[in-house]
């Protein structure tokens, strides 16, 4: 790990002043569950580390006129034990339950989950986001069992965020602050597929801090997240789906289906979402939506199995959201 300067500001304003214009100038430290391992492995080497855990403005979960505001520095455990979130946003609490390490739930933050770097083993070994070795594309030619089945670009890693799919499905926004002001970005646009090794996989700029997540709560909207993980103990999902359902009587008025861990960003399954309108959620319609959700998937040499996992995750998330026992 390269030696670095450490700052622990008490206000957002102070923190923003400590950031730079490049990623190597400063890194934001919240729970540190990802940043520290990246630094130890030499994947990133910031000159300054800015701790944001002391900043009160980044904490707390509050009700707003349209939904819930979650401070970026709220820990996963705080989110899980929050009554408002538990009552109104099951897709988020279920995603939080999927983070099966108590240590990560206690230390890791919601903002950190959104900003964590890909788990791609070539990236973590220092080959970059779009890893190449002697001119060969490492992901497409190498071991890609955990990689993307969606995405047309060069990026073949999968977004590691546990909350991303649910936030996209729920229509959440994230607030990004810089010394020059703040901007709100749709969760769906926060995740981006980089086209070169210097780009990032989120819309955050080096001089910005993710400050809060604004999740709309719509009366009667149902939601669920289903993750396929091999282990019950700490493990990364192999595929996941987050869904929201607005019902009209016993049929679906509108649905949102977003897949996770299948592409460099959460993947909105547009056709599967729209085809459910007017239908009841049953084993059959859920399965059909699952199949539609993975249409157009382009698995790599080793990960065809993930297509089925994503499809099953959609089916099970829909059944869970609708309260149908399979």
């Amino acid at each position: 790990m390269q030696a670095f300067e450490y700052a622990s500001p008490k206000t957002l304003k102070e923190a923003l002043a400590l950031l730079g214009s490049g990623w190597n100038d400063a890194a934001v430290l919240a729970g540190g569950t990802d940043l520290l391992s990246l630094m130890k492995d030499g994947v990133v080497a910031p000159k300054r580390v800015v701790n944001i855990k002391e900043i009160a403005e980044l904490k707390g979960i509050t009700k707003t006129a349209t939904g819930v505001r979650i401070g970026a520095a709220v820990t996963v455990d705080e989110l899980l034990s929050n009554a408002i979130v538990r009552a109104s946003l099951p897709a988020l609490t279920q995603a939080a339950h999927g983070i099966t390490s108590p240590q990560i739930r206690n230390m890791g933050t919601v903002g950190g989950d959104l900003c964590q770097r890909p788990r791609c083993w070539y990236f973590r070994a220092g080959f970059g986001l779009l890893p190449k070795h002697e001119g060969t594309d490492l992901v497409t030619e190498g071991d890609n069992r955990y990689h993307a089945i969606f995405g047309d670009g060069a990026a073949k890693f999968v977004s590691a965020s546990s909350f991303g799919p649910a936030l996209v499905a729920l229509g959440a926004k994230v607030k990004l602050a810089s010394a020059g002001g703040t901007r709100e970005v749709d969760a769906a646009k926060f995740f981006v597929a980089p086209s070169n090794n210097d780009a990032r996989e989120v819309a955050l700029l080096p001089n910005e801090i993710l400050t809060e997540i604004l999740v709309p709560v719509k009366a009667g909207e149902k939601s669920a997240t289903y993750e396929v993980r091999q282990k019950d103990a700490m493990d990364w999902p192999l595929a996941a789906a987050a869904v929201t359902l607005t019902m009209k009587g016993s049929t679906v008025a509108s649905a949102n289906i977003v897949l996770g861990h299948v592409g460099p960003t959460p993947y909105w399954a547009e056709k599967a979402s729209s085809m459910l309108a007017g239908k009841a959620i049953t084993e059959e319609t859920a399965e059909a939506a699952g199949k539609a959700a993975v249409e157009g998937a382009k698995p790599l040499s080793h990960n065809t199995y993930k297509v089925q996992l994503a499809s099953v995750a959609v089916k099970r998330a829909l059944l869970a959201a609708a309260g149908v026992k399979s």
Partner: protein
Amino acid sequence: MPNYSWPPMASRKVMGQRLSRTDGIEKASGRAKYNSDLNKPGMLHAVLLTSPYAHAKVKSIDTSAAEKHTGVAAVRVIAPAGTEIQWAGWEVAVVAANTELAARDAVKKIKIEYDMLPHVVVENDLKKVKTRAKPAGEQLEGDPDQAFKEADVTLEGNYGIPTLTHCCLEPHGQVIGWGADGKVEFNPSTQSVTSIRGDLARLLNIPATDIHVHQDHIGGGFGSKFQPDRWGIEAAQLSKAAGGKPVKLFLDRATELMIAGCRPSGFLNVKLGAKKDGTLTAWQSESWASGGIGGGGSPPIPYVFTKVPNRRQNHTAVSLNTAPIRAWRAPNHQQASYLTCAPLEDLAAKLKMDPLELFLKNANLTQREDTYVRQLKKAAELSDWKKLWHPRGDSGKGPIKRGLGIGVNTWGGAGHDSTARTTIHPDGTVEVELGSQDLGTGTRTIIAQVAAETLGLRVPDIRVKIGDTNYPPSGTSGGSTTVGGVTSSTRKATVNALDKLLAEVAGGLGAPADQLEAVDGKIQVKGNAAKSLTWKAACQKLGVKTVSETGSNVPREAAKEGLNTGGVGGVQIADVSVDVETGVVKMNKLVAVQDIGLVVNPKTAESQVFGACIMSICGALMEERIMDELTGRMLNADMEFYKLAGIKDIGEIVVHFEIDELNDKRGVIGLGEPPAIGGIAAISNAVANAIGTRVPTVPMTPMNVLDTLSGRKS
């Protein structure tokens, strides 16, 4: 000649009791100090620089910038220009500095140029490894061609079991100081306190008596921690170069997984011939395996069913640019058990026969028919086999399919060379000293039980001192030899010490020494509690003397004395549920029926079996070293993608020992390895029973299971 034999089973008071480990609280509370916890005054921290390339020649190496780095005390080149690197992770240079950070930063300043050479790191397809294949030649027994002609049924199948890496919680390494006086203070993480001293002495070319080894606890070894290793030698040399300051060098997790030991792979194309009733008549196999650059790994197949009459076997060792193998809890046996029991279960399926019947039918092809018949029946009972087993493929509704499967094991486990010294002090204190080690299995506890039993005392009355070369030499903890060795030596030393004590107090009790006994905290005339002295009072008769006697287990003679023997069988039955939509396999239950002779402590013994079963679950479902053909590197040298079971992944584990007079008479037999053997086969067979088809390679990850169900090649 004193009578060393074990007291009769029925009269034992301390041995055979379910006692918790004497160091359990110390460990659970975090007070136990492992050598990787040591932080000695003035200690330097050393960090290795390893090769990122699997096959290359070192062209040049320049350490000058590292030497000038602030805090650096010594730098050593391990692989000078001209060295041919044979695997990624090969040690190239090492730096000692006053902080770990400084050492890590300095290592990055070492400049190396490599000439790249072609590498081969994957062996699942034998055709692709070309010149790296080294056939061992054909083994022929009987007339397999004729036997296949006469067979009612034949079965052909392909199976594979991958390389696993040792993943000890405490990584390999040591703190070592080599002072100006020539004396070496060595605190390694080792499975062999006594022999590692001599090994290090040879490597440093100094007298063994100049080396003192001490280790209180070890955080896992599993066969990978016998030698001082390159990092031990280098740390010693760094210490010497730095004027004798102690140097701490423990591997980081990635290096630990890459180079600190692995279990060889095993692949098999096999053809079986059998009669209609399931009797095996022929075995023909082409097998291959790799244990790194030296090849290696030759599973003893057919396993347990060794007397299959007609056999043709060809084995090929494959040389890979991967780090070398080390002994892994029952070397080659896990692979052999899987590569035998999986085809046997497939044969049963082809015959539409209950595999339990097929295993029973062929028990006469094993070396211990009665044992396996008894154990198969017991394991079937404990797993509810009759009720839960069904022909291949769970026909129930829904995506969750349940299945049961069998695996078998065999092992030696006779005691190793061991000498113990028992000292009785005038105040009644008893010390037992051995240069042994407790791998976490309860060695300290069972030594105390044996000494207490012998002296008519309780476990807290005995001070067990192990883990130091100042104590009498005791063997390497490998091959499940420790329990037999240390219980026998402790018994003999303690009987000898007691005899001396009895001689001292005989006069006072008015009876000859051979008419005295030590029971219930007293020395008394045999069968006459009225003529007795309390233990303390008896010891006070020693005056200023102490009684200190040794006793040794001599492996060649141990069986004659009846204290320990070897040779066991065991059966595992797994009960699994497979989600055929996701390929996720969940353990319901793993039953282990194990034959272990005299059981000194059923609780710690059971605990050993729990660990062995958990290891099997990891091996069957999760663990594999994933090598990248393009870069030649290990892709999962971490604990995120080198997957191990957590508590919720384990299910129920049921352990059954055959504790009875008959087994007890065989003396103590080691248990560390056998129950770790058959579980992988049992789980694979259970999955086949559940989903109706064989997942031919382990681990049975969702990828492997779904690829099998869809007819894809992973």
